[in-house]
């Protein structure tokens, strides 16, 4: 294998890190370009590690992520109809694996617990020789696994993680996020909320008491306050809470006319169900109809809340009903193989797998530092979100964001959300040192070994 595509910048980074660690010069400087970093593939196969929640509360989302990864592996190895490889603007992938090596994979169970996720990622890296770890359905897990991958010298392609911190204060050089984040949700939602509910609203936030909840509350608060809304109260709710009645009952007493549920998963299903049970949406406060907002929507979660999601605004990274060529190709591929449309978790994971493979092809090496360089500031299209940039400053993808609403008259069990607006990327773009993302430092890439 040749390492001719490895650039000066990648070499300097690798050398600097290895040198600082007191190691000998990276061995990929030798004829064999695939040595000198963690789990350099030596045979005719390469192993990827899919670390998804296979048990615990997000197991259904994890199962959908795994389906997407299996589909991506099939396409990378030349099977199936090729899916989004046909619409992807980069044409480096040829359907012959990655750099001619057949793609194999191992899976781990994050259980949506940071320690379990780190243990399964470590096992896939140390025992199975995974050269890249990807997946997950929680920001807590993503931040923990990303830090592990940085230490171990492998690439981490995050799955569903929406907290600002993943590419903010906890960003790492070896980690990349395709999924959107809390800031983007707030920036996309605010104008739609102003247009539909006006600029004079009193909002009451219920926020899941962990990393993701805090950043989402902060993002939605600042973007709605900027357009004139007042935040009456922001109450933290325990992650383990199942009955939210004691939190929802005081909402009307507070004089608020809008409830923002910074909840995800089971929390969202239960808090929204409770809020509807308490008749909040039938009430009139301050002369206005009471409204509920769910900043981060997931179709799988919306299904759990049933008819309660009707008419409720939120945001999402992607939706199967998008009509662009890439989305349609992916929905056709996934739907034909599994019989139902993919979730946004499946979409981001599939895209991340392809983006990694493409970066390796373009770099001509599996060396993490070469991959980092290939992904940084990489612009692409045809993956379902329009023109997208993988920003080098923080390893966050910048692309259009969807504002959605619970559909009033769904035609099927999958048809739960309707796209209200495709917010252009310019509206959700921020500076890398934005206060909501402050305190982070990518550091330098670590090739390990």
């Amino acid at each position, binding site marked *: 294998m040749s390492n001719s595509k490895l650039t000066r910048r990648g070499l300097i980074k690798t050398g600097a890190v290895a040198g600082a660690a007191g190691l000998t010069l990276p061995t990929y400087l030798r004829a064999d370009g695939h040595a000198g970093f963690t789990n350099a593939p030596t045979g005719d196969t390469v192993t990827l590690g899919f670390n998804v929640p296979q048990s615990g509360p997000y197991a259904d989302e994890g199962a959908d992520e795994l389906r997407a990864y299996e589909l991506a592996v099939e396409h990378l190895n030349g099977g199936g109809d090729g899916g989004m490889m046909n619409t992807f603007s980069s044409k480096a992938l040829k359907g012959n694996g990655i750099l001619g090596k057949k793609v194999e994979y191992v899976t781990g169970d994050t259980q949506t617990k940071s320690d379990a996720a780190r243990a399964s990622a470590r096992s896939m890296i140390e025992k199975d020789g995974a050269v890249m770890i990807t997946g997950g359905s929680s920001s807590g897990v993503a931040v923990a696994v990303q830090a592990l991958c940085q230490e171990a010298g492998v690439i981490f392609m995050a799955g569903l993680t929406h907290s600002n911190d993943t590419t903010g204060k906890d960003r790492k050089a070896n980690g990349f996020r395709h999924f959107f984040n809390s800031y983007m949700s707030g920036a996309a939602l605010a104008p739609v909320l102003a247009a539909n509910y006006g600029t004079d609203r009193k909002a009451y936030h219920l926020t899941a008491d962990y990393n993701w909840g805090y950043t989402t509350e902060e993002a939605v608060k600042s973007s709605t306050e900027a357009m004139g809304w007042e935040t009456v109260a922001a109450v933290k709710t325990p992650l383990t809470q199942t009955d939210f009645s004691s939190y929802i009952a005081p909402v009307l007493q507070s004089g608020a006319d809008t409830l923002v549920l910074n909840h995800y998963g089971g929390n969202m299903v239960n808090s929204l169900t409770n809020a509807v049970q308490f008749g909040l949406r039938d009430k009139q406060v301050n002369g206005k109809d009471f409204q509920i907002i769910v900043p981060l929507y997931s179709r799988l979660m919306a299904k*759990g809340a049933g008819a309660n999601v009707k008419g409720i605004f939120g945001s999402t990274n992607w939706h199967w009903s998008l009509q662009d060529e890439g989305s349609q190709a992916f929905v056709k591929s996934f739907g034909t193989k599994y019989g139902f449309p993919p979730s946004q978790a499946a979409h981001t994971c599939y895209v991340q797998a392809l983006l990694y493979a493409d970066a390796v092809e373009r770099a001509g090496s599996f060396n993490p530092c070469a991959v980092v360089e290939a992904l940084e500031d990489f612009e692409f299209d045809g993956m379902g979100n329009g023109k997208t940039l993988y920003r080098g400053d923080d390893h966050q993808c910048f692309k259009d964001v969807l504002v959605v609403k619970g559909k009033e008259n769904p035609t099927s069990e999958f048809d739960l959300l309707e796209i209200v607006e495709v917010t252009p990327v310019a509206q959700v773009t921020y500076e890398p040192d934005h206060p909501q993302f402050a305190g982070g430092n990518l550091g330098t890439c670590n090739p390990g070994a």
Partner: protein
Amino acid sequence: MDAIILQVLNGLDKGSAYALIALGLTLIFGTLGVVNFAHGALFMIGAFCAVTLSRILTLSHTIIDDTKTDFLGNPLKVEVPYIYDIFGQATGDVIIDWAVPLSILFSIPVMVAIGFAMERGLIKHFYKRPHADQILVTFGLAIVLQEIIKYFYGANPIPTPAPAAFTGSFDFGAMLGFDPNTIIYPYWRLVYFAFSAIIIGAVFAFLQFTTFGMVVRAGMADRETVGLLGINIDKRFTIMFGIAAAVAGLAGVMYAPINSPNYHMGMDFLVLSFVVVVVGGMGSLSGAVLAGFLLGILESFASMGAVLEVLPGINQIIIYLVAIIILLTRPRGLMGRKGVMEE
């Protein structure tokens, strides 16, 4: 004042669930001497009885609607419930709408059968073993049961709505002379509270006023003497296990519209229910009910914004804090009997 009334109301439905689960736990402990950590799983299975009946009632056959397309562009397959074919769409919709109340009838035999199977198949082998063994085996059983449910129903919550007639909420504030919207309470939660009161009353009446109940109470007080009188107390205790399972199951069935059932919901209630039993007094049925409502209401108060501002995080520990205080001042719990768990 209105905030206090509101939190009392909020505590009632949660307290109802705690009381019903704790009642079953105490019945099993009092009769069989077994600490049943699988009791939360029975509550969860009860909720899934409602899910299952909903699914049975909506079992469908497929017809092709050529005028519409699915997500792949193929002609849309429309699911038509068989119940429409049998009763017509209007009646069929009413039956489907009332799936949760109908599940009460469906769940009783199912839960009693599960209770019998658990007791005869596993738990009877652990009567003479230490409590630690009983806890381990029943906790393991609870995990097995929830994984079975997850295998068949998935990990996501499944919406199981109450009948349309009970959606919406009642404005107590307006009725009591407060401002409208200050004290609102969902109709279904009122139904749940009333239902729990009826079940608790029925269990007490059964134990108090029937011969069967008298024998069981005698057995709880002195199992050996009752046995010496020639009464097959073991058989009656097995039946009590079935009844306790049915009580937990009914609590779960009616709870399904309050929070969409998921495989883990039993565990969420289990630990708190044990605290309720201990606070109420091991082996005391009325203590379990009293402590259930007391702790449910206290938990609601602790979640009030004003309280959290003064004591952040109190909502997470209030139940355990109260349990510690009560056990320090009344080591047998509120209504515990002498001699129980004191050998």
